């Protein structure tokens, strides 16, 4: 930051510094306001249910019983399955763009496709999932003699995976782009093949960066609302199988917030939001810290 001595000249500098500082204060107040608001509105639910809010498996607005275990499980399941599906695919795209085709037509085309898909709003993925993916899944379920819901945890995990691929691939090729050239050249000069360089140098060197990418993608998946809401089936019971309907915390809020007629109901939904907020904030900061360490390690 600029030294005080240099600032005491014209009042313009003082007021400019003041304006900059107030923008910083504004963002701190905003985040504090977010935490306080979520906590304030959750307080009734927090004091009524305590820990049972997380361990309870019944969500019943009629009897006034609120436990979010089904949604916690639904959120984790959809996000983890989505990660498992999307990880190898985005890694392949990452290697394609970041190692084999760093320039030229294939690079432009693949990057263009990735950016195009990243730009499609989640509501449209949900819409497509509802009209295309759900019938396909239903066909398979009939084929394998599973209850043919079509909608459900697995279906939303696929939609989520499709949405995450462009995001994690773009983190991926930025990360492996930071691997020092000298390291790779050293391995080539020892007679390593390209496959060996990718495996033993590029990927092992960028391990922590890729881990961070996975974390950040996970954070994205946890908070994703609309696409999931449209294809998960919105069942408030504990999910019986990953092929059956379920619900996530985000889509619970989306579905029921305008219906919350009494204070406790509203408070329970705010507490769900609070938990979602804390979990995603922790994951995001963790991911960013790992990325930062990785980036400063490459310099």
């Amino acid at each position, binding site marked *: 930051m600029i*030294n005080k001595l*240099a600032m005491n*000249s014209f009042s313009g500098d003082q007021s400019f510094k003041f304006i900059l500082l107030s923008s910083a204060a504004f963002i701190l107040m905003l985040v504090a306001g977010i935490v306080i608001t979520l906590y304030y509105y959750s307080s009734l639910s927090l004091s009524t249910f305590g820990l049972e809010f997380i361990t309870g498996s019944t969500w019943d607005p009629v009897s006034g019983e609120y436990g979010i275990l089904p949604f916690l499980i639904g959120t984790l399941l959809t996000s983890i399955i989505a990660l498992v599906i999307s990880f190898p695919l985005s890694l392949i795209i990452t290697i394609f763009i970041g190692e084999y085709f760093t320039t030229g037509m294939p690079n432009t085309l693949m990057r263009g496709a990735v950016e195009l898909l990243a730009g499609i709003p989640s509501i449209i993925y949900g819409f497509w999932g509802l009209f295309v993916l759900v019938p396909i899944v239903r066909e398979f379920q009939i084929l394998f003699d599973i209850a043919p819901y079509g909608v459900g945890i697995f279906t939303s995990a696929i939609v989520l995976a499709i949405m995450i691929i462009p995001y994690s691939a773009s983190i991926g090729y930025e990360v492996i782009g930071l691997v020092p050239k000298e390291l790779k050249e050293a391995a080539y000069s020892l007679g390593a093949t390209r496959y060996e360089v990718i495996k033993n140098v590029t990927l092992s060197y960028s391990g922590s960066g890729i881990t961070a990418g996975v974390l950040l993608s996970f954070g994205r998946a946890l908070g994703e609302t609309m696409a999931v809401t449209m294809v998960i089936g919105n069942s408030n019971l504990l999910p019986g199988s990953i092929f059956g309907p379920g619900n996530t915390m985000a889509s619970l809020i989306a579905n029921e917030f305008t219906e919350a007629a009494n204070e406790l109901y509203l408070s329970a939904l705010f507490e769900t939001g609070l938990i979602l907020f804390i979990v995603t904030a922790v994951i995001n900061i963790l991911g960013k810290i790992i990325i930062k360490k990785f980036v400063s390690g490459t310099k």
Partner: protein
Amino acid sequence: MGSKVLKIDGLNVYYDQSHILKDINLSFAENTVTAIMGPSGCGKTTLIRTINRMHEFTHGARTEGSIKLYGKDLHQIDPILVRRKVGMVFQKPNPFPTMSIYDNVIAGYKLNGFKLSKIEKNSIVEGSLVKAALWDEVKDNLYKKGAFLSGGQQQRLCIARALAMNPEILLFDEPTSALDPIATDRIEQLINELKAGLTIVLVTHNIAQAARVSDYTAFLYLGELIEFGTTKKMFTTPKNKKTEEYLNGKFG
């Protein structure tokens, strides 16, 4: 030689805990070129940045002692006014990339919000570019961005920009270290021509350059002023052993 324009008395500069300049006493005479030389890290750049108070932008900088411009302590004058009286040319040519050559020359006026008539502006631009020996090369391209100029031309544009403010002192911080020998020669000629109108302080690590262009030379070593005198005298009969070793290339 003329009267003393700038007098430095008992100057100490610290960055946080480190003592960069130690008890410097030095004065600069009107219409002369004073070279400040010494091995890297000796505090040359810090010394001239203290003169136009640019050092204050470095975090943790602290000074003791006085620097007087025509008898007035610089620390009593607003730093903004100091910088308008004491111009500076940097190591790397740094014209403003978003501005045309014309706008670069009058940038000091424009950015400070001075209102000038078109005629005044034109005369300042032409006058400064002529003084900086750049006019003939750019007069047909005044409204183009400076990016297409060569490094040496860019550096002369920066000199024109500083001259446009009519400074009393012009500080050069190793102005030719990024330039080729021909461009360096032009800048050195220019410094020689310019001293008729103002006082010049030149930081250089190039001993030959100091010998070529300066009237006086100050030799700094590890933050201390080892020797100061006319360039002729110092280069022929240095008083201090350290100076002699440096001039003979024993270290640096």
